[in-house]
Each structure stands twice: as structure tokens, then as C-alpha cells.
């Protein structure tokens, strides 16, 4: 029933009145229970109430030691159709991986898949929870409504192949599929619960009652003793997955590479001869001469070209797409080859660091000693190990830094948001890299606080196993002490990130050039090393050197929880 101990009282998180029998069912679980009993067993029975709410009816009957047969569930036609459609003996939780295009995809997503057999995953039913938005809403309204519960959240049931089209093919996201450790009875309970809730809405809240939280409720229906949903104030999808793992609910992992991962993998593994023909073909927009290749080599080239055509032409004219696809498939059907191309499975996101981080360090600010406390509740930073995360990505919310100097305790910086998306250019893609951060920081010159906003764009490249980047933007700073209370600087931010075994290395150079005066501010190099100690702990060393000969050096420990 999705009851949750809120701050004030225990109430159901479901908002749709149709979910409750009693008028006050949302707020009064005892009244609701009484209403259910009355509907099923009293003289004021409600016809077919068990058909509408099979999960709770079975629950009540079981607890009262009354026979389930008396509920006459076999006569519920709609329920039986549903059970046939979803029929499954295995349940998996699906995790489309992080992507930096938007807030929802930055955190990943979770959905549930009801499986029948390993050969029918495409037709398995996938259950996802999302907000039912109005297409006419503009971007700001959309973000506002999504975070304040002004959209209805609904469960959606689709064949898994439709979700694959969306995540794997359209959004180019890798997908992690985790099989859940549930008994047949538990799966049955889950299915009955989905039936009760599939047409019901609740307010959608981006931060706490979001997609992954509501999916957890479905699993809790299977194992009510687990109390999975009590544990969070706010939640990200990976937090919910780690919780499931810690409760022994995850059995096997399967990695499903996105189309772009597959294409890059094929190119990497091609023999030089085939690779040259592939790149030639991409340059010319059509298949170059491949007659000199063996059958397997031809298959490799054409299999790549098929993906390439789908990828390139799917957003263009439908007729052109169909024509190109058809012609290449005709060619491929004449080639006999047993080639398979497997993408190496990356490090499991379940093995990544936890999403909240506390850092305690001590250092010296050009001679002045200090202790520093840094904290953010979510989710990942350039200094953290990329294991299980998207390399080159950094997204922090409410990142807070406090420093204690001799007798002075100051808030050094508070970033509402601090995001880097460094996406290296490669033979297939030429993405834009970007960063944005805003918040307040301590202004040392005036000993007060400035509001800052620092967006920038640029490019990133793979160099020697690491990522090099260059970004340029305009940094704004608002401070009472400035002329017109504001200052605008050209922001040049360039650096190199490298990770190997337990070490993460970050080198960067940052310069601000004032747009009004051409003065150079903030001209500094930064060197950061993080050493992974395991068990969600790491050692962090940082050295900053300004070109006006000032330095800031610190060392500390990071804890993730």
C-alpha cells in the first residue's frame, strides 16, 4: 500500500483516490484495512473487489487464515489476461547507464523486467515509473513541476524491445541487467501488486519519489520484511541497486552494450585492412570496394556498416533510411559468417563508490594552516575513481566546503550544482564537452561572499589512456564590491585526467581574464591525486599553484556512504 513514515505521520505515498477503498485511505491505514475487510467479507460486500485488488485481498485472506479460493480470483477475466501477458518465473532490475544529456539520465534510471526465458527477453514485460508530462510545458515549467510533484507519476508496461530501442538505440546508453533473487511466490506477489497499481498515479518528485524509488516499492511488495523504502531521504538509482545487493537480492549481472559502444568496439577490433575500408566508407557516405576481403572480413565490415546506417539515417527521411538499410541487408544476406562481436564488460556500477562523499583534510594556504571539511550528497566528481561511473563525467549537488583557519571558521564554497561532461572525440562522434557550476564562494579580497556562475564549452580527447580537455566560457561573479555589483571573466579551463589501478590523477590549468579590464585573475595550476583504499575510502592529495606565486596544498581522506 506504499505506506511510509513521513515527517509528520504515516501515510501512503499513493495520491490517486482510486487506489483506496476507504475515503481516508491515504492517511489512515487502519480505516483502509477495515474497509477492505468489509468489502470482502461483511454483509456490505463490494462485488469483484478481489478482482480489482488481488494482492491485498490475498494478503488479508492469508493473515486471517481464510481460504483464498473463496476470493474467486479464477473468475477475474481482466486479471487473468494480465497474468497471462506478464507470466514470468524470473524478475530483473534494469539499469540504463549514466548519460550527461539531462538530469534524469545523469543519474541513470531503473525499471523492472518480468522474464520468461532467456530467449524471450525482448518480449518480456518491462515496468517503468515515470512522469506523465504535458507536451506543451516548456523546459523551465517541466523542471519545476518535476521537482515539486506537479506531474502525475505512472507506471508504464511495455515490451522490453521498446525500451531497448529507447535506451540502447536512440540514447546510446549501455544497459545493465541484474537478475533478482526472488522465489516464485515472491514474483507472484509482485505481479499482483503491479496489477493493482498499473493504472494508478502518484505525484512525481524528482528527488525522492522518483523512478528508482517507486521501482523499489514493487520489489518490497515481493519481500515486505525488507523495508527497502524506509531508508532514503533522497535517492539515486544506483543507491537503490546497491541496497538491493546488500540485501542479497541481486544474483547475476548482464551487460548490454549500446549501439555506439558496439560500433566503437567493432572498429577497434577490425584488422587494419578492414578498418581502412570502413573509414573510407564513412568518409564517402557509401560502402567502399571490399571485394578483396574474405567472407568473415566482409561480414565484419558489413555488420559495422549496418549499424552505421541505422545510426546515421534514423533521424533523417524515412524513405532514405529504409532504402539504404534494405540494400545493405541484401548484400549481407549473401555472406555466410558466424562472426560475433562482444563488447568487453566494464566495471560493474555496483562496485563503484557510493554516492555521498565526505572529505576531511588539512593543508596550508600559502603558509596559513587549515582544516577542511568537504561534503556532497551526490554523486560523482573528477577526483573520484571512475570505476562503475561514466569516465570524464562529474556531477555534484550541494557541494559544501568549510575551512577552519587558526581562529576563523569560514564557508569556503557552496556549489548548488557543479557538472563536467567531458566526452572524448573519436572516429564516430564529435561531441561537445561542457561544464557548468554555480553557487556562492568566499571572496578573499573583500572577505565576503560572491555568487558565481561558470558555464563553458569545448572539446575532449583520448590521450595515452586518459582524457585531455579544453573548455572556454564566461564566468560571472556577483559581489557588492564590484562596479555594477558584477564581474565577468573569460574562463579558460584545460586539463588531463588519468586513472590506472588505484590511482586517479588530475592536472589542470585555469585562467580568468577580466572582460572589462583585461586583468588576469585566478591563474593557476592544480595537481590532484586520489589513491583508492578500497571499501569506499580514498586518500586525496591536492596542490594548487598560482602564477603570482601563491600555493595551497592539502591532504586528506575521503569517505563514501
Amino acid at each position, binding site marked *: 500500500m506504499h505506506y511510509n513514515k513521513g515527517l509528520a505521520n504515516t501515510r501512503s505515498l499513493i495520491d490517486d483516490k482510486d487506489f483506496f477503498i476507504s475515503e481516508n485511505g491515504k492517511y489512515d491505514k487502519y480505516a483502509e484495512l477495515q474497509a477492505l475487510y468489509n468489502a470482502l467479507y461483511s454483509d456490505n460486500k463490494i462485488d469483484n473487489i478481489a478482482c480489482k485488488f488481488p494482492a491485498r485481498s490475498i494478503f488479508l485472506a492469508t493473515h486471517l487464515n481464510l481460504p483464498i479460493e473463496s476470493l474467486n480470483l479464477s473468475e477475474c477475466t481482466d486479471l487473468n489476461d494480465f497474468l497471462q*501477458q506478464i507470466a514470468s518465473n524470473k524478475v530483473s532490475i534494469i539499469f540504463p547507464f549514466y548519460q550527461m544529456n539531462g*538530469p534524469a539520465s545523469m543519474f541513470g534510471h531503473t525499471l523492472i523486467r518480468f522474464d520468461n526465458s532467456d530467449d524471450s527477453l525482448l*518480449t518480456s514485460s518491462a515496468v517503468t515509473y515515470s*512522469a*506523465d508530462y504535458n507536451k506543451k510545458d516548456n523546459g523551465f515549467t517541466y523542471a519545476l513541476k518535476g521537482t515539486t510533484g506537479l506531474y502525475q507519476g505512472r507506471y508504464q508496461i*511495455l515490451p522490453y524491445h521498446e525500451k531497448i530501442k529507447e535506451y540502447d538505440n536512440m540514447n546510446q546508453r549501455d544497459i545493465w541487467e541484474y537478475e533478482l533473487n526472488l522465489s516464485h511466490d515472491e514474483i507472484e506477489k509482485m505481479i499482483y501488486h503491479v496489477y493493482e497499481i498499473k493504472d494508478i498515479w502518484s505525484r512525481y518528485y*524528482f528527488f525522492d519519489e522518483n523512478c528508482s524509488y517507486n521501482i523499489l516499492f514493487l520489489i518490497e511488495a515481493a519481500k515486505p520484511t525488507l523495508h527497502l523504502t524506509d531508508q532514503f531521504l533522497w535517492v539515486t538509482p544506483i543507491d537503490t541497486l546497491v541496497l538491493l545487493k546488500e540485501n542479497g537480492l541481486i544474483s547475476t549481472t548482464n551487460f548490454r552494450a549500446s549501439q555506439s559502444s558496439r560500433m566503437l568496439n567493432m572498429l577497434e577490433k577490425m584488422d587494419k585492412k578492414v578498418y581502412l575500408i570502413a573509414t573510407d566508407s564513412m568518409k564517402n557516405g557509401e560502402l567502399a570496394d571490399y571485394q578483396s576481403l574474405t567472407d568473415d572480413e566482409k561480414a565484419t565490415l558489413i555488420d559495422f556498416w549496418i549499424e552505421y546506417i541505422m545510426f546515421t539515417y534514423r533521424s533523417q527521411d524515412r524513405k532514405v533510411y529504409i532504402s539504404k538499410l534494405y540494400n545493405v541487408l541484401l548484400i549481407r544476406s549473401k555472406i555466410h559468417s558466424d562472426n560475433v562481436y562482444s563488447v568487453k564488460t566494464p566495471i560493474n556500477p555496483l562496485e563503484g563508490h557510493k554516492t555521498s562523499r565526505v572529505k576531511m583534510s588539512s593543508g596550508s594556504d600559502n603558509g596559513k594552516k587549515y582544516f577542511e571539511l568537504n561534503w556532497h550528497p551526490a554523486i560523482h566528481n573528477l577526483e573520484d575513481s571512475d570505476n562503475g561511473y561514466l569516465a570524464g563525467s562529474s556531477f555534484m549537488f550541494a557541494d559544501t566546503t568549510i575551512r577552519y583557519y587558526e581562529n576563523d571558521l569560514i564557508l569556503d564554497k557552496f556549489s548548488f550544482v557543479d557538472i563536467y561532461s567531458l566526452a572524448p572525440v573519436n572516429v564516430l562522434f564529435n561531441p561537445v564537452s561542457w561544464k557548468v557550476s554555480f553557487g556562492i564562494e568566499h571572496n578573499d579580497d573583500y572577505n565576503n561572499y560572491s555568487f558565481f556562475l561558470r558555464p563553458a564549452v569545448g572539446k575532449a580527447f583520448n590521450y595515452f589512456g586518459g582524457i585531455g580537455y579544453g573548455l572556454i566560457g564566461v564566468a560571472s561573479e556577483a559581489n557588492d564590491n564590484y562596479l555594477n555589483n558584477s564581474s565577468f571573466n573569460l574562463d579558460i579551463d584545460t586539463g588531463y585526467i588519468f586513472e590506472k589501478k588505484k590511482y586517479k590523477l588530475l592536472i589542470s590549468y585555469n585562467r580568468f581574464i577580466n572582460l572589462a579590464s583585461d586583468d588576469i585573475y585566478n591563474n593557476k595550476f592544480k595537481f590532484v591525486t586520489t589513491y583508492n583504499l578500497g571499501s569506499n575510502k580514498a586518500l586525496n592529495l591536492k596542490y594548487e599553484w598560482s602564477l603570482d606565486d601563491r600555493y595551497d596544498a592539502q591532504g586528506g581522506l575521503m569517505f563514501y556512504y
Partner: protein
Amino acid sequence: MKKIAFIAISTFMVASLSYAEGNIGCGLGTQVLGEQDSTLMQVFAATTNGTSGNQTFGISSGTLGCKKPEKFVYNEQVNKFVQANMDTLAVDIAKGQGETINNLAYLVGVQDTVAFAKKLQSQFDVIYSSENVEYSDVVDAIHASI
């Protein structure tokens, strides 16, 4: 409190909508991107993995005015599956292997998926007789070739 603070955050996030409307016609083109939302929507949207519309269960088939397969030997599940996966099925048949063929074999009740796939590959130009082939033609042709 946290929520109020975070509202300000999310309004500045660069985003892109991850959901596009289903784009299933009668023939090839199932992988073609559906109607895309406006750029502004893409820039600021998607805090919600949103979906507009009421797709509660599966995809509708037959209601799109497509002709139905001649042979009703296969169930509606097979028809829906082929219609929704025309492109990926065509790719797998051209290759003589793949997950889509395996799933089709399962739906049709074929045990030896390897032989099934190879047989279909040899019949590719019969099953996909032209680029304008419709799903019902594909279903009929697959049935005929077994």
C-alpha cells in the same frame, strides 16, 4: 527545504528528453526516431524520465490500418512482435543469427534456433521481397519457409 533549494538547481540543468513516441508503421523503419520534442524542451527537460500519453500495455497493432497476415496460424503475439521489430528482425535474418530471431523462434515454438536462422537467411529476399514489404508479408513468408 532541500526540495526548494533543488528546484533552482534543476532549472539550470542541460538536459535532453529520453523518450520518443513509438514509431511503428506497417513496414521497415521501426528504428526511425519518433517525433522529437522541441529544442528548448530538450535543453531543460527530462527531470522526470517523462512520457506523455497512455501507453499502458504493449503496442497497438492492426489498428494502424496495416493489412493482416493471410495465415492466422501464428498468434497475435508473433504479429505484434514482427511489426514492432521489422528492422532488427531484418538485420538478424540477413546475418543468419541474433537475439531478435531467437525471440521469434521462441514465440513460434521452434526449438532449433540455429537451423531456423540459417533457413531464414537463405530466404531473405523472399521474406523481404522489397524495401516496401509489410510485416504481414514477412509473417506469411516466414511461415511458408518453415
